Structures are given as C-alpha cells and as structure tokens.
C-alpha cells in the first residue's frame, strides 16, 4: 500500500514538474494556461490519491474518513480549477489578446 502511494505521489510530482516547465517555456498566454490548468489538476489528483492511500493504509475507520476528506479536496479542485482557467482565458479573449503565431524566419517573407 505504501509503495503504491509513493508511486502515485511521484507520478503527481512528475505532472507538476511538467506543468511548471510548460508555464515557463510556452510562448504566450493561452498556451501557458494549458499546462497551468491541466497538469496541475492531474498532479493534484495523483498526489492527493497517493496521500489518501497512505493515510488509509491501516484500514481503520478514522483513517478511511480522513482519506475520504482528502478525496473531497480533489472533487472541489476538479470543479474549481477548470472554472478558474476558463475565467482567466475568457478575460484574455475579452481583453483582445490574439493567439500566438510562429515568428517568421529571417530571409523569408
């Protein structure tokens, strides 16, 4: 059980790392929101699932209740995080931000 939990947490951290790299490396607002919104949700699901498994490893009632509370956090984040991303993106569109296009290479027109 502990091993499975550890694997989950490490996988979650992998997603978080990918999200951070994506936020830093992507060229513009909209493409940066993509890793910020998606990979954070996935990383959170993985890490919190790992923590829930670790908490509930001895299968006593209080431990399982704590694990359920952790999973409840996941539910709330899965409702609110995409909404927040949607709202930010909507604000970007309304502010008149255009999508990024690849810069033209030198010498070509």
């Amino acid at each position, binding site marked *: 059980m502990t091993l499975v939990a550890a694997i989950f947490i490490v996988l979650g951290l992998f997603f978080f790392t990918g999200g951070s790299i994506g936020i830093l490396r992507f060229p513009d607002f909209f493409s940066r929101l993509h890793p910020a919104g998606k990979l954070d949700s996935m990383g959170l699901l993985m890490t919190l699932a790992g923590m829930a498994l670790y908490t509930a490893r001895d299968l006593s009632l209080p431990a399982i209740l704590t694990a359920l509370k952790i999973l409840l956090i996941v539910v*709330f984040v899965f*409702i*609110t995080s995409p*909404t927040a991303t*949607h*709202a930010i993106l*909507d604000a970007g569109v*309304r502010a008149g931000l255009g999508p990024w296009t690849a810069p033209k290479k030198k010498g070509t027109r």
Partner: protein
Amino acid sequence: MRALGLATVFCFGAILFYISFDFPGWGDENSPASQHVSPYYIEHTMDDTSVPNIVTAILADYRGYDTLFETAVIFSAGLACFFLLRIPERQAPPARFYRHLATGITFRIEKGGRLPEDTDEFERIDSVWVPYDVIIGMTCRLVVPFIQLFALYVIAHGHHSPGGGFQGGVIFGAAIILFAISNNLRRTLKRMSEKTSALLGSLGVLIYAGTGILCMVLGAGFLNYSALASLLGVDPVSARSHGILIVEIGVGIAVTAVMVWIYYNLSSAGRQDEGL
C-alpha cells in the same frame, strides 16, 4: 552615491548576520522565551480554560487585549478604505443601458426616464458588463455555500484545531466576494448593502469589547471570562472556553464585514454604482 548606498546596505546586513549568531537555537529550552511564560501556558491551558488548542487560548483569553485591538485595527482598515476611496455624491450617468433578456434588445434610457429597475425582464448594462457566463455562475453558485459552511466550521472549531475568528471571517468574506465577482456589484449590494457591512463590522468589535465590559460589570477584570460563569450557567473554567467562542464570533463578524466593505470600495474605485 549608489556605491555608498550599497556599502551601507552590506554593512548593516553583515551586522545583522553577525548578531543573529547570538540568538538561541531553534527550540532551545534554555532560551529566555521558553523559560517563563511558555511552560506556564503549555502546562496550565487545559486546566485554566479547557481549550485543547493552546494557540487559541493564548490569542483570545490570556492575551485578549492584543486580539481586541487587532480586531479594532482591521475595522479601522475598513474605515480608512472608506474615507480614502468612497465618493459620496453619486453622479448619475447621462444615460443608462438596459438589455431586455428575452429578446436581447438593448435600450438606452436618458436621464429622467423611467428605469426598469425592479423587474426581472431587464438587465442593466454598464462599462464592466460581460455576457452571463453559465460555467462561472454555476460553479460559484455550487461552491459558495460550501465555502460559507467551511468558514463557520473554522470559526466554531478554533478550540480544537487551527482556525478561529480571523481565518473563518476571511473565508466567509471570500465567499461573498466570490459571489460579487461571479455576479456583479449591484446584485451583491442588494443582498449585503454597504450600510450592513459597516454596521456588522462595528458590531463585531462591539461584541468583543462588550464581552469584556460584561465581565467587568459582573465583578471581574476586563475580558476575564470566568465571570461569565453565573450568566452561562457553567463552571468558571468552561466559562472561559465559552467566552473565547463568543469573542471569536465577534472577530469573525468584524473580519467578514470589513473584507466585503473593502472589496466594495476597491472594486468600484469608491463609486459603488458599477463594478464587478
């Protein structure tokens, strides 16, 4: 000049670093801070106040004066925002725009015209109006009650776990601000007007100070909750626990109201006619 400034900064930084070596080690039980009051709190809190969370007991009971004036500081922050930002005379715009919801036609109503203010068929459109967003509105409607419930839990559960009036009040205020963001300022003002928030803010401080004065009236020191025992019908030790709860509720009300009040003034630059 710049080099001189840098040299000064480095000098004082080095002195600070040097002094920091004289500090006692982290958690050193021989340091002055852990010698006198801390052991007393750790050993006697449960017997004195029957509150398991020592931090809450210190904050609202042993050092109640400190927290009383912290609450007053928060209230005066709200007052300061009000005095700095609020524009009292409301200059009515030359014309207002209303959209008929069923047909999507927008009307321009000149000053002096009859405004369809109290009907559900029209929606006022101002400079920050955005089309009604189903996703955001629905999510906020779903989440706001849970946030408010959680805030009440944090206030009420400050005796046993991290939490208390300040944290719970901020969470409750955040729920109302979330409602204001997802709808608009006018609809929020209709539910909780500026007057309500100002009155609630002062009511919170009044509950706190009033509890203290009630203790004085009953013959003990200011904010000595054990005097409330006869009033609440419990022994003096649990009376201190209940007194902490009363005071925390006051703090929660004050913080909630002041957060919302500051938001009203900041989001509309003090005009409070249009805004998020």
